């Protein structure tokens, strides 16, 4: 897994589409903050206890969704779980 991620990241870099990203430590390492009405509550664990967990993300620069989907399909996590594609908010 580690190795295929490395190969994939290299491919993104060599294609010149890689902008950034990070792999994340697993959910048990998460700490969640909520501050409703100004009152801070800190809790151990991820904010959503779901079967599928965010393992990391890539920021890539491609002209359209179709190109992004091509790259997402090649991501090793697409074979073992899922790769979700979202546009960046335009700011």
């Amino acid at each position, binding site marked *: 897994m580690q190795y295929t991620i490395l190969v994939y990241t290299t491919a993104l870099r060599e294609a010149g589409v890689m902008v950034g990203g990070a792999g994340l430590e697993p959910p048990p390492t998460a700490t969640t903050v909520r501050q409703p009405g100004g009152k801070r509550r800190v809790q151990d664990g991820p904010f959503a206890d779901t079967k599928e967990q965010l393992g990391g993300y890539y920021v890539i620069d491609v*002209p*359209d*969704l*179709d*190109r*992004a*989907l091509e790259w997402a399909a090649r991501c090793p996590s697409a074979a073992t779980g899922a790769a979700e*594609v979202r*546009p960046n908010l335009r700011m």
Partner: protein
Amino acid sequence: MRDAGQAAELAARVSYGRLLAYLAARWRDVARAEDALGDALLAALETWPRTGVPDNPVAWLLTAARRRLVDGARHAGVAAAAEADLKIMLDERADASPAAFPDERLALLFVCAHPAIDEAARTPLMLQTVLGLDAARIASAFLVAPATMSQRLVRVKAKIREAGIRFEIPAPGELAARLDAVLEAIYAAYGSGWEDVAGSDPRRRGLAEEAIWLGQLVARLLPDEPEAQGLLALMLYCEARRAARRDAAGAYVPLGFQDLRRWSRPMIEEAEEVLAGAARLKAAGRFQLEAAIQSVHAQRVRTGETDWEAVTLLYEGLLRHAPTMGARVAHAAALGEARDAEAGLAALDAIPPDEVATYQPYWALRGHVLKALGRAAEAGEAYERAIGLSEDPAVRAFLLGRRA
């Protein structure tokens, strides 16, 4: 005054889809292209009565819509303004030959059929953008509330813009997979035009021809896709019978009683040729089977008879490929002709009643077979339900006559 209005309506009707597809492809934004084109049409209705109809109404509309898009982009901010300036430059170059702007309708069709688009919204979106149907009409064709349909369409247009779906005809590898949705939409458009036999509904006038045009375009682009050929053949067979579906007085004429001299032989021949070409590709499919059924009906021109056994057999094949309600009811009708009314009724009884509560053809056929079996009271009830579900007055009048 009226002439200018008519000219604007004509320009919009003939070229709406083409203008919209071009603008949407250039700006990658269907919703804004629609707004701009709508504004341009309003401007035409205001301006043309005063200034006269321009020599090239379509080019006028295109220029007006483009200006709206550029102005809108300028207002949206600095970054967008630079983009807008670039677009103006490109557009001015295109202005050299305004009549020859590229036809992006097929690309737009494939955008609408993109896997990232909600499946339920694909056909409605194509009907609205490429063929210019309004949301209320699409909603009634898809049996949902107009407000629901409008919301659904707004949502998918936002998705196209925000997700950045590519405005291109897909590469050969992906093209086949997206073709199904495109063919479905074209057939739905044809169906909508087909219902309006008399041509009395201005929103649907010419829709059948538009659908056939789109079918021809797709069939030409994909000569090795048997289903694209099959759909074209199917539409041509049906269109060949258009003139025979009403008599001189405008009364509804069922298929079995149509005047064969009013069937278009050239169109039937063209359909036969297209279907034969599809068959050579040796991959059966829903549209080819439906076309084959119409081909059997078309044989009546030569033989004077209908081979109902062949029709029944083809419907059985069709039910394996696409078990739609239309196919189930039509299969029951074919059984009723090939065997007897009892067999037709048994096939109708096998359909769960809650699925046909508002399906007009089911009740019309049910009335027909019950009447043939001498069960007059039940036949009357079925006909009454069918009459209540018929939009077309000619069909209502026919059913009233049958019930009596």
